[in-house]
């Protein structure tokens, strides 16, 4: 889609959305809204922290408290495990332990403090490609990257080396990805990395590159989600 066409379409959108009300938002220079690649057919941007809806935290805490009180996860696992043979149960416990170890570095509390999220999606052939960027403070992004990389390594080990874990520098960001066998005809490459406090997950290195380029070099015409915001 050329820029002239984009301008026309977003002018139309701007007029159409003039009547919609929106609360004041703070726009940072390196706004994740800039990172939505123009080839995406869907993009979502959200702020994680809005004091106006802090009351939801009270309700959400009550749900988590009830989950913890019920011990439902532990009880479900116990039931499943109690009906397995000794061999299967041992394997089950080994997998459970591997997953727990892989995710041990993740600072879950920090994930809840994520301040900004951008998600974009596009189709390439029969594959739906995804790009997720989350701004997480205080090493939270790195902890999540480490956890996901550990999961990649578990998958690689389980595949007996058929899915090697590789790293590629894309726009100054080391993206660690599972390398699929060349006979897989689809574009699907789960990859993870960080750029400062921004956690990046994607299923396509090219799609991630498009987003990372936009963060460093915001387009002359405002990025996809900025344009949506400017309509108000």
């Amino acid at each position: 889609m050329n820029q002239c066409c984009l301008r026309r379409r977003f002018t139309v959108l701007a007029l159409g959305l003039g009547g919609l009300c929106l609360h004041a938002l703070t726009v940072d220079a390196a706004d994740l809204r800039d990172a939505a690649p123009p080839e995406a057919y869907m993009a979502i941007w959200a702020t994680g922290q809005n004091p106006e809806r802090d009351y939801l935290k009270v309700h959400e805490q009550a749900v988590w408290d009830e989950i913890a009180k019920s011990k439902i996860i532990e009880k479900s696992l116990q039931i499943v495990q109690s009906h397995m043979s000794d061999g299967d149960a041992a394997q089950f416990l080994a997998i459970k332990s591997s997953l727990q170890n892989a995710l041990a570095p993740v600072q879950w509390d920090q994930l809840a403090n994520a301040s900004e999220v951008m998600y974009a999606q596009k189709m390439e052939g029969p594959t739906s490609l995804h790009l997720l960027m989350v701004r997480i403070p205080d090493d939270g992004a790195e902890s999540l990257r480490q956890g996901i990389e550990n999961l990649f390594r578990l998958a690689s080990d389980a595949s007996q080396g058929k899915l090697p874990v590789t790293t590629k520098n894309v726009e100054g960001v080391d993206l660690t990805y599972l390398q699929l066998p060349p006979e897989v005809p689809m574009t699907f490459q789960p990859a993870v990395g960080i750029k400062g406090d921004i956690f990046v997950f994607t299923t396509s290195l090219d799609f991630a590159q498009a987003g990372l380029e936009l963060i460093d070099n915001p387009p002359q015409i405002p990025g996809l989600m900025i344009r949506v915001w400017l309509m108000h």
Partner: protein
Amino acid sequence: MHSFFDGKQLMSQLHEIPQFITRVSNGEPEAARITGLLTELINQCSAFDYEVNVRYTDGFQQRTAAYGKLSENAGETVLGRMLMNQQSYENWKSFVPADTVGFSLNSGCTLLPFYDWAMQEIPARFPEVKSGLEEFAARQDQFDIHVREDILQSFTGEFASVSLPGPVTPFGKRADSVLMLRCTEPEHIEELLHRGINALQEIPQVKQQGVAVEEVAGLDGFLQLKANALSMAQLDPVLGFKDGWMILGSKVSAVEAVLAAKSGEAPVWADGDRFSEFGLSIDGPVCSISFTNTGENIRAMSQAMQQLGIMAPMILGMIQGQTQGEGAEALQVVQELSGLLPSVGRIIGKLDFYDATMTVTQPGPETNSYVRNSVTLIRAPAAPADSDAAATEAKDTAEKN
């Protein structure tokens, strides 16, 4: 939260699927026929231009505003023709009685353009299906019921469903419901229904069930479906036609309530306090509108799961006593898992802070555009410092659960 959906971009990217199939099929003729059909199907679905969505918080309301547009040539596509010629609701308020606990009015879509397209496009591309379609046509002639003329032309897609307070059962409150389908040929459909019932009565097993229809006293043009199984389940479904709608109700009283509101003889929900809580200003016709009593539904589900969690292990235990081998082992797992249902029910019950949601879609200011507004009411939490209020809330929640 902002979101942007670009329908044109999606459709352009979906065209890569047939290209991908062509590439990996190495010129296989069968693949070429499939990709031809797929390409045409994607073309015929290319009706959406874009939708922009903004979600924001306003006190204890989560509000969403959306603006969307169909493409300029949407009317030339099958999907566009399915969506664009629907009747909107000029007076949505009249469909919803004052004591409604949930409703959904929708201009829906008509399947007729898709049926016509499929019946033309598929045999043209796959001549081998012609004999099957001829047999399908012969069967329709044999039973004198035709999918296109009798069903798809008669039901144009608009529908309205209304839920009203129903009886209390051991698993919680049950809602009575009324479903209305816009029908352009009520007399013909009524005749088809009578033929269907008569045909069912020819089947001995069905006849044993005492299937019959009776006219409803005081409700002109309505029939009540009778059957032994329905009586045992305490269901008295009624069916009838009025003002261009086919109306199905779980009970005569529910249909009467909707008709009374529609005729202006009874108060309507939109005049009550519940509607005003949403702060939605709705002028002019609506394409769709719905109200979901989320908190009430969550509490009902929570209660039902807790009840089921108490009863299921006992029932399964009795069945298990009469079962042997692998079946008994499988039942043992189900019995143990069903013991978790009360906990699941209590967790679900904690989500009842989502009080209610209302969504309305109306024609937008531009040609082929629409505006959708949605409001979710959130229950205010008790102030932590106010121990009395917190205790009251905890007591209320416990009672509700």
